[in-house]
């Protein structure tokens, strides 16, 4: 059963940045887009399981810190070598100053 989990405060993430969130033995990445919207994906790159939260967010793209694999964090779509497997994404809801993700 999917449930909504409180992941962080809005202010925990700068605009156009990403944060790691661990829950229930899994790791996620929570993003804040340049225009302030929040998104969530699996936390590990689909290439070699590196934490994407150490990567760089530019516009809609998260670039993996390890080998620069790129994903659109809004859709999870892999955008360029060496990654070719898409990232899972999760619904996000903002409640007051908290960010919730449905997992």
């Amino acid at each position, binding site marked *: 059963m999917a449930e909504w989990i409180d992941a962080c405060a809005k202010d925990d993430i700068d605009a156009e940045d990403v944060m790691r969130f661990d829950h229930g033995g899994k790791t996620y990445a929570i993003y804040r887009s340049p225009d302030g919207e929040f998104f969530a994906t699996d936390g590990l790159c689909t290439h*070699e399981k590196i934490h994407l939260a*150490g*990567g760089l967010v530019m516009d809609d793209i998260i670039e993996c*810190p*390890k080998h*620069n*694999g790129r994903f659109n964090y809004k859709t999870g779509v892999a955008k360029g*070598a*060496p990654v070719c497997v898409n990232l899972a994404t999760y619904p996000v809801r903002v409640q007051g100053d908290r960010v919730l993700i449905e997992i």
Partner: protein
Amino acid sequence: MNNIVIVGAGEAGGRAAIALRDGGYTGRLALIGEEVHAPYERPPLSKAAIVEPDEPRPTTISGGDRLGELDIERMTDVAVAAIERAERTLALSDGRRLGYDALILATGARARSLNLPGGEHALTLRSFEDAQRLRERIRAAERVIVIGGGLIGLELAAAARTLRREVTVLEADTRLLRRSTPEILASAVEARHVREGVEIAKGVRIERIDPRGRGFVVHSSLGSREADLVVGGIGALPRTELAVAAGLAVENGILVDAQLRTSDPDILAVGDCANFPHPLYPGRRMRLEAWRHAFASGAHAAQTLLGGDDAYAALPWFWSDQYDLTLQIVGLVEAGEAIVARELGDGATLLFHLDRDGRLVAAAGLGTIERIGKEIKLAERLIGRRASQSAAALADPGVNLKRLL
């Protein structure tokens, strides 16, 4: 153009094939490789393939599973023996002949062998099969001697040490990683190896390697050292023999122009075997042995053949993993004259290399990936901007590099 042949099915050749089809090329396309595998990634061979408990398998290059769907004639386990330019024909090692309109040479490099008595006893690493053999031999060994403190030698030393082998690195030079890495970071890498218990000796002249029992004795200016396994990591040589025999211009790699054409405009060269100019570093030529260059130059050659006129301009970039440390270098360190250091915490460092005009021309980071990953990406974008940067801002970890963009 209706008949393109690619020689060499590694990262660069495989990438060129995929990019040609993705770019709309519908003519005949052949990809010839002497290895039996589909194009695979080499970087894991000196890292995960050695240390991971599971038996390694070749990691097909990204998108490589599509090669089968893209109407590409894939010839594996066969080498191109000669290029007959006058007839625009290739002679294959199995006697077949194959015509071409355009040719992409993506023949890569080979590990340099040790040119001294008994040098053949030192195992080198280039292919998946080399990695399988090294994996078995390292696991069976107690004492490992690595000759050469370059990237692959040090990665293998780290892998062997991670598996708790006794490891000695013998380096001829007075410092490690001279070709690739600024001295400050090379010293930090060395210190880490020493802390892990690797013995590192520099300025060592190797004289010969003798078999003894089931192992070897390495005779050098240090005296005689026994080991169960000797590994050679003394660099790679571009595979230019086809190009030389065909009369193409070759000098530390196959010489290409900004569009990656060789001295014969119907033949292009990409990846480790090519020597190319770069618009960000005028007046220089370079040959890179790095994954990104293989990928990007392969894709760029496809664009050139599809009618593009852009100069190849991917920034040089490589990484190396040793223990939990990542080394990443972007740009061309030699083009810099001054160094500004930015301390990122937990011992992680980012060095900015600035040219005479204060422009950032390279950045080199060492630390955990969490510490350096994002910063080096921002540095890369700053290099692309070609603007002069304030040394004070670069050095201050409190200044978000994104603001300098």
